[in-house]
């Protein structure tokens, strides 16, 4: 709620994630990617935001019906999260060891020496050199890439089965980004972790995701296997987005550009939110919200043009 009325940050979003799989959640800022992730962990700031409907099924149980105490047992142990900016997600006045150990102490009830041993082991898993010696260091003594790896260590410390990564590499340099993505992939291979990877970068999607959901103005407009999405993008927004990104492989003289701006979330149009910017839009697009169209077992698009 805001003084403009209710902003529907996320509406009618449905997807599933399977063990060992990486689902990419792509979209521009304000399209609802982060709110979707926070909803899964029931961390949407209240009373500003509210989950007004839907279900979040975790191994068959609805997370929305859990009590706060039960949720605490799930956060960090079953589902954990990596946030975008390691500068703000690490506490500057606690040592790295303390911060990594916190979750382990709570969820696995370890104490004393075994706790520190386990903490060092986890830091070792994310390739922090000589982890034993760095337990008592503080975040400011680490570089950006190392800090983000510490955040990674915190989130995998209790061996969760689902990891939600909200643009974890945006603040990193390209060579460090590649290191980090490679590391996440390795951890996933070893532990069969499922991942939801939020990003606005199709390069990252191409690199690590198995399936992708493209979001626009709070809704999923297309969901498909990665290769399908790149080969046969069905939704005009996905097509336009893929065409508007410069690439390294070939020299183009002029990029396709999507005119206009993403819409504001309060007072969204009645029909398809992309219609005002879409070159194929018909009068129907402006009036009716498009239904789900399945183009294959794993490929769904919400567009009147593809039926």
């Amino acid at each position, binding site marked *: 709620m805001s003084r403009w009325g209710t902003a529907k940050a996320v509406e009618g979003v449905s997807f599933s994630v399977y063990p060992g799989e990486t689902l990419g959640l792509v979209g*521009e*800022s304000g399209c609802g990617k982060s709110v979707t992730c926070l909803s899964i962990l029931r961390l949407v700031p209240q009373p500003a935001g509210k989950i007004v409907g839907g279900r979040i099924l975790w191994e068959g149980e609805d997370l929305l019906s859990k009590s706060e105490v039960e949720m605490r047992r799930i956060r960090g142990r079953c589902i954990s999260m990596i946030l975008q900016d390691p500068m703000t997600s690490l506490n500057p006045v606690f040592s790295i060891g303390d911060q990594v150990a916190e979750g382990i102490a709570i969820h696995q009830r370890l104490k004393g020496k075994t706790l520190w041993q386990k903490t060092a082991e986890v830091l070792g898993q994310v*390739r922090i050199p000589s982890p034993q010696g760095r337990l008592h260091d503080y975040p400011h003594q680490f*570089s*950006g*890439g*190392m800090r983000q790896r510490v955040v990674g260590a915190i989130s995998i410390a209790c061996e969760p089965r689902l990891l939600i990564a909200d643009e974890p590499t945006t603040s990193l*340099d*390209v*060579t*460090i*980004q*590649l*290191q980090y993505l*490679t590391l996440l992939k390795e951890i996933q291979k070893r532990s069969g972790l499922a991942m939801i990877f939020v990003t*606005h*970068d*199709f*390069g*990252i*999607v*191409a*690199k690590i995701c198995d399936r992708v959901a493209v979001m626009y103005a709070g809704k999923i407009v297309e969901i498909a296997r*990665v*290769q399908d999405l*790149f080969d046969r993008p069905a939704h005009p927004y996905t097509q*336009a*987005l*893929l065409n*508007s*990104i*410069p*690439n*390294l*492989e070939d*020299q*183009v003289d*002029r*990029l*396709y*550009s*999507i*005119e206009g*701006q*993403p819409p504001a979330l309060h007072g969204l149009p009645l029909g398809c939110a992309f219609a005002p910017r879409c070159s194929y839009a018909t009068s129907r697009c402006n009036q009716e919200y498009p239904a789900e169209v399945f183009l294959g077992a794993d490929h769904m698009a919400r567009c009147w043009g593809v039926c």
Partner: protein
Amino acid sequence: MTDALLEAHSLKKHFPVTRGLIRARTVNSIKAVDEVSFIVHEGKTLSLVGESGCGKTTTAKMILLLERPTTGSIHFRGKDLQHLSPAEMKEYRASVQAVFQDPWSSLNPRMRVGSIIAEPLVVNRALTRPAIRERVRELLLQVGLRPEQAELYPHEFSGGQRQRIAIARALSLKPALIVLDEPVSALDVSVRAQIMNLLKDLQQQYGLSYVLIAHNLATVRYMSHRVGVMYLGKIVETAEATELFYHPRHPYTRALISAALRSRPDAQQEEIVLPGEVPSPLNPPSGCSFHPRCSDALPRCSQATPVSREHERGHWVACHFAEKPTASIGSASYAEERP
């Protein structure tokens, strides 16, 4: 090759590191930019790429006269900036403009867009009010905004539109050179192409030169004619854009290109995962500053600093081993080294 508009020769910028409050003494210096030379040609784009802390922004600041080089010189249209008369200096400042990364902080929230765009005109040109209003109108149309939007405040615009306002302001004095410091990285993916295309159109229309500072290689490839790759304050490789991306010779350039994510899942990609991180510029490694992370490094690399040499026409590389034929994008002949 077109004429040189701006030439930088052996630019150095060292920031002193001091200890003590009252009798501060210099204990060390950070070599933010170390012996950097480049040429910006008339009507062309030179890009400087590299990771954070490599000195690309400091270089841009020296061009904009926001930092004074420790040593080295910048020549603009053949004249040394250090020996300009005050009037010439004023003219230089008018002909070199900047567009910054973040259009949320580079526009004054209390000024109307019209006044923001008019400010350089008011300061630098003796124009009548109607003439200024006419020029602002013209500029808004050029960058794809509506003239009546001059009455609005920056907060009423989206990121892409704000960047258009920043571009209009930079264009107001009809500059010859615009320094673009990460002009699209703060924008949404779907509006980046709009801004990049706008910048390209303006370049064609007015014969503008750009110095583009960016870390996204695909953006650089799309926008630039020449590219300089920077690492720890030095330009390690410069070449024409196509040449650089097809035949990178410096191991750092190759690693950078390989680390840039491909646009498709099935794209062939050599993978060079660089071990470690960029060393501190306070205490740069001896010899070639890239040697601790380089998979080809030999003892010689840690002893002698490689000199930048021209290997092919216009392709300069600072590496002891740049002579050997190298891999280009897509081939996997370059050995992978893991930490």
